[in-house]
């Protein structure tokens, strides 16, 4: 799937230290150069160190915030919102997608335009509506995250089910499978790659929306921490928050990709 994963395909099984080293250097070179420039630019006065502190300062700030417990508290507050919102989206959108794509095709054709419009509506513009309806507490934030990440999950699930090769369904019918068996043994595994793509997109969306929601109206969470640090001119704390959010995003994406690779092992690896 990802270009970065294709480098270790078709390698001999024996442990290749030199090759591994090469891969690591190859993959991390850009990041290292970026960090060096970031470190040097404020140090030699190319940019104002007050507004763009070097990564070493940001790193020290992150350690301090971790030790004081603040970073952990805020991260947990954010993560719990994502887990509830995203989890709810999976619980609703997956079954709904399977039903719409597999069993109620005519109904799906009828409601699809409406769903597309709802899915396209900018969630930030909807946030005031959610707050008005659900108050300014946790519920409205979880609800908006749920709202945002249900769409890619739903649309991809519908597409995945609809694109299952009809010949496979024919085979299943000749084998005399019941509707339920057809779903578990054919429709679900055949649509899984597309469904997982939707889930991965949903996970990424949930982080976007989380930070946005926390910046607009919250008293905890990483988004709140960033906006509060900015307001009180704690610039290095603000950067610590930004880096933490980026790292969380990377970790979640990596977990999703590993999960995808595990359950779709039967797919051909394509070297690009």
């Amino acid at each position, binding site marked *: 799937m990802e270009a970065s994963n294709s480098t270790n395909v078709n390698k001999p099984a024996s442990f290749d230290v030199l090759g591994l080293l090469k891969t690591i250097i190859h993959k991390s070179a850009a990041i290292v150069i970026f960090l060096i420039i970031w470190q040097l630019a404020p140090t030699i006065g190319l940019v104002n160190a007050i507004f763009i502190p070097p990564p070493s300062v940001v790193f020290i700030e992150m350690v301090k915030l971790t030790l004081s417990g603040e970073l952990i508290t805020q991260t947990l507050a954010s993560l719990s919102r994502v887990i509830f919102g995203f989890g709810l989206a999976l619980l609703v959108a997956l079954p709904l997608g399977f039903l719409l794509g597999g069993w109620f095709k005519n109904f799906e054709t009828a409601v699809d335009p409406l769903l597309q419009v709802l899915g396209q509506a900018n969630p930030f513009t909807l946030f005031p509506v959610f707050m008005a309806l659900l108050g300014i507490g946790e519920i409205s934030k979880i609800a908006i995250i749920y709202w945002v990440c249900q769409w890619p999950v739903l*649309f991809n699930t519908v597409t995945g089910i609809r694109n299952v090769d009809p010949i496979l369904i024919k085979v299943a019918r000749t*084998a005399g*499978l019941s509707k339920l068996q057809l779903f578990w043994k054919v429709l679900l*595994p055949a649509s899984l790659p597309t469904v997982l793509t939707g889930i991965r*997109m949903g996970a990424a969306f949930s982080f976007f929306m989380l930070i946005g929601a926390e910046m607009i109206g919250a008293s905890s969470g990483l988004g709140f921490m960033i906006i509060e640090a900015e307001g009180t001119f704690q610039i290095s704390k603000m950067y610590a928050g930004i880096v933490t959010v980026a790292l969380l995003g990377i970790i979640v994406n990596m977990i999703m990709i590993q999960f995808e690779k595990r359950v779709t092992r039967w797919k051909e690896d394509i070297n690009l």
Partner: protein
Amino acid sequence: MAKIEALNVRKTFRIRSNRTNRNAAGNCDFVALDGFSLSINKGEFLVILGPSGCGKSTFLDMLAGLTKPDEGEITIDGKPIAGPGLDRGVVFQQYALFAWRTALSNVSFGLEAKKIEKKARADLAKKYLSLVGLSGFEDRYPFELSGGMKQRVAIARALAIEPEVLLMDEPFAALDAQTREILQTDLLRIRDQTQKTVVFVTHSIEEAVFLADRVAVMTARPGVVKKIVEVPISREARYSDDVKVSPEFTKTRHELMALLKEEVVKSQEICSKCTIEDCGLGSGRTPVAPLPVPVSLGSK
């Protein structure tokens, strides 16, 4: 008594014609089969040969129980076909393997519906994989197999449910010439070992003569059986290297070619009157809607 008996079968498809070719109603019915009768004996290898779009795959789908005739009746052992059943194994032109299952697990697919316990399932699947010459490939996924091997797996899958009848819909059409010849010979060997009744659809005359005990030549749409030709070559003689240059082989091939030629010309006249899509439907395939592009952002 005949094993399979088709009597006066009629099957029409209603298709939505596209904008450029719309009649007054906006739809056009076309008749795939009309007055189609055929009887197939137990244990025989019957090849249905016909021009494309003559309804031969439609007939096979009906034998498989995937579609029902509009008129007429098809019976197996005197009982009308009510739907799909494990007394019939089907092999399609597209390999139709489950990409997420290994070769072994693909073969045992039909057995799972039969509620056979796991161990016995694996044993049966292994047995049939070895019958099609794929011992040692049990754990391979379809993407790790060549086209010929994939079709072998599909044949093993159809055989594993131990059906009485094997239905094959142009199973070798997608293979290269060499692989096709090898699989044809292997199919005859498998037939001799398992004594199945085989109904085999093709548009290749050479394939028909080589495989068939009898060849049913079909007319252009609407399809009926034009003539049934017996192939005067014994089953044993087919394994010989020069069976394809024997006088019997050549003679039968010429006979079939002459029969088919008129029909091909006719079917092309029909095709020029309708759209290409109509012809595609005539061969009994599920009408394929233009596939929506799958959403796959974030993948390369």
